[in-house]
């Protein structure tokens, strides 16, 4: 039996729109907008000033904070402005705007040079940090910080998340199919960081990847290909660790709690590029898809190219989209404007026509329990959503609202088309606020008591 988790759903994956399209490079635009925060953690401070000349791959922003990741210029040219700019996350982010001189003058020679044999662990980690590598599945957690924070714990499951369980997205699939040697080099680099076997987890809707990689690692004992059942959200952190290792991450803890660390397939490729080619993360593969797009496919795009530019380059729309999403349809973020830049975590740009936009006339719960059967966290979404509507925050806490991973499986499954996860997401923010306030009050109370005692 294929490894998997309990619950989940089987959305139609729409990967047929782009899975057979080879990666095509999109030329750099005349101007790039490089946000100084493309990750979870502290934003970077700019290292350049207006008027400075920068090279392609030059570090233009960094931070001293532990959880942060530097950003690099994706072109060579001149810094023309540093100002807050619209960002695909929906907020304005301080960004460096660079006018491209179209010379693509690299900061260093990016040609291949095998350095794997004599590289040390510390060198590897520092290169990963300097390359600005973050989790490329969408969350954008700085990879170096993740590795360093695991230093104290015994890691015996290094899991590569190649599940790509989001419908529509095929960027990881194309990377794995077109760059197998590079991915294997990336994996080899990771084996030098952790004293553990690597588990390369792929959903079984990608049999060609499984066959290819199984063949490539057949003489290696340090890498194992783990086929997983195709089911959403197979790539969820807790679901993936459980499927691969059978271990359950305790509520509120990280995978390292059970000796596991997860890296995305795209991240592995980025590690390869830095180690073997000294090329930092300033371009990535983006799946451009959806029924509004004229020509769907997978494209290598410079970070900082706007959605508008990229969409125009691939041939524009065959029908005006009603919804533009960064990422996949299950957890992606809708865009209110398309002059936002592609960032490190832009796995896809999904453009849906009015026909594909979900607008239920009426939403209601018939208590069928389908959301409950499907919840990969074993929660009761129907009840949580109802309590959220009634704003009963104490009940929400009691019914584990904070365990929700917001994967959206409940809303997807609901025959009454209720906005379950959307209600729950709102409630989570409120409960989080209440918890913080409570902690603050307790702290103040303790301090007051301590004062009284002294």
């Amino acid at each position, binding site marked *: 039996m294929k490894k998997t988790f309990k619950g989940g759903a089987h959305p139609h994956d729409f990967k047929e729109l782009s899975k057979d399209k080879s990666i095509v490079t999109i030329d750099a635009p005349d101007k790039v907008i490089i946000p100084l925060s493309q990750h979870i953690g502290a934003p970077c401070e700019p290292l350049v000033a207006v008027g400075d000349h920068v090279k392609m791959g030059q570090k233009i922003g960094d931070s001293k904070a532990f959880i942060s990741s530097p950003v690099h210029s994706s072109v060579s040219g001149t810094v023309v402005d540093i100002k807050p700019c619209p960002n695909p996350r929906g907020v304005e982010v301080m960004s460096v705007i660079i006018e491209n001189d179209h010379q693509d003058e690299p900061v260093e020679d990016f040609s291949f040079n095998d350095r794997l044999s004599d590289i040390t662990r510390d060198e590897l980690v520092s290169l990963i940090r300097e390359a600005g590598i973050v989790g490329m599945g969408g969350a954008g957690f700085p990879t170096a910080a993740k590795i360093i924070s695991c230093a104290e714990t015994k890691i015996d499951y290094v899991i590569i998340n190649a599940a790509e369980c989001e419908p529509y997205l095929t960027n990881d699939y194309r990377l794995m199919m077109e760059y197998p040697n590079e991915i294997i080099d990336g994996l080899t680099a990771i084996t030098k960081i952790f004293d553990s076997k690597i588990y390369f987890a792929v959903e079984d809707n990608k049999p060609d990847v499984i066959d290819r990689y199984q063949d490539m690692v057949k003489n290696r004992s340090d890498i194992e290909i783990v086929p997983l059942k195709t089911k959403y959200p197979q790539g969820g952190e807790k679901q993936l660790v459980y499927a691969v290792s059978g271990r359950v991450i305790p509520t509120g803890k990280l995978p390292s709690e059970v000796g596991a660390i997860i890296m995305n397939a795209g991240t592995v490729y980025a590690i390869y590029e830095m180690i073997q080619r000294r090329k930092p993360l300033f371009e990535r593969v983006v799946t451009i898809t959806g029924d509004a797009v004229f020509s769907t496919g997978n494209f290598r795009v410079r970070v900082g190219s706007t959605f508008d530019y990229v969409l125009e380059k691939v041939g524009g729309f065959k029908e005006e989209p009603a919804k533009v999403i960064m990422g996949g349809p299950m957890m992606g973020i809708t865009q209110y404007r398309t002059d936002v830049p592609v960032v490190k975590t832009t796995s896809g740009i999904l453009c*849906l026509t009015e026909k594909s936009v*979900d607008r239920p006339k009426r939403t209601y719960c018939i208590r069928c*329990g389908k959301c409950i059967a499907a919840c990969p966290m074993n929660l009761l979404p129907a009840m949580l959503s109802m309590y959220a509507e009634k704003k009963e925050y104490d009940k929400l806490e009691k019914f584990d609202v904070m*365990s929700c991973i917001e994967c959206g499986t409940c809303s997807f499954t609901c025959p009454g088309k209720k906005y379950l996860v959307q209600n729950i997401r709102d409630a989570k923010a409120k409960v989080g606020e209440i918890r913080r306030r409570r902690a603050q009050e307790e702290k103040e109370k303790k301090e007051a008591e301590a004062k009284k005692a002294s």
Partner: protein
Amino acid sequence: MNTSYVMSSSPHMRSDETVTKIMRDVIIALVPAGVIGVYFFGPRALMHIIITVAACIASEWAYNKITKKGYNTIGDLSAVVTGILLAYNLPVAAPLWIGLVGGAFAIIVVKQFFGGLGQNFMNPALAARAFLFSWAVIMTTWTAPHTVLPIFATPATDAIATATPLVALKAGQIPDAGLFNLFIGNVGGCIGETSALCLLIGGAYLVIRKVISVRIPLAFILTVAVLTLIFARGNNNLEFMLSHILSGGLMLGAIFMATDYATSPVTKKGQIIFGIGCGLLTVFIRYFGSYPEGVSYSILLMNACVWLIDTHTKPKAFGEGAKK
């Protein structure tokens, strides 16, 4: 630049599952029992089904109109399901107006007054049936299979009355009909309740289509089985137990009424507790009640406990209490 894009919180896609599809599956699952009901009790049975369904749809439509809901819910087919279930719970000799009264009561009072589909706390068809017991003689006058009845006129009750197997069981006897007739439904009883075989076929369909889980029906029927086996009357325990399971409204109740989404628990543990509760009450009423059948009332009583059960049977979240 277009700035009129739809902004929304993820997910941005939905399954093609709808309430209508679920209700359509329930209707399909109810067909075998209806067909055999019409076969055993004649065209008058079909007339009852048509009238209750029509009454339920008309009530649903009228309520939406009168209260100016702005949408109509007849399309979700839930009123059709209620109508069919109500007809299946009527004796074939009952006057036809009883279906009209029952249908209107089920939809308007039991379902819509409490907020409509998913909000009602009692099963509409069962609550309507309980209401119709205001006409106790009508509701307890049973007809033997293959009795020829007029389609429209009300038959004289004394001419056609027969006893149901439950009366024999109550007296501690094995029904004369025999297990085979009980199994296929060739006995007196409500229109859609007699054929365990057809109801089981419908139930299997619902389980395969994942409309219901086996938890409630299985817990319900097993509880009745165990109790009637332990506390069997007469000298053949096994036959007594099987007769109990195949008689009355147990199969119809366990498979189609106790599994009603709105009025049964949503948690797995809760569903098992609910099923066991229904089974306990059914046997209790069948053994000690003044009326020989207990399925309807046991389900209605358990309906009232659903919220209590649900809020006390929260499953452990994935990762809750997990150790390193």
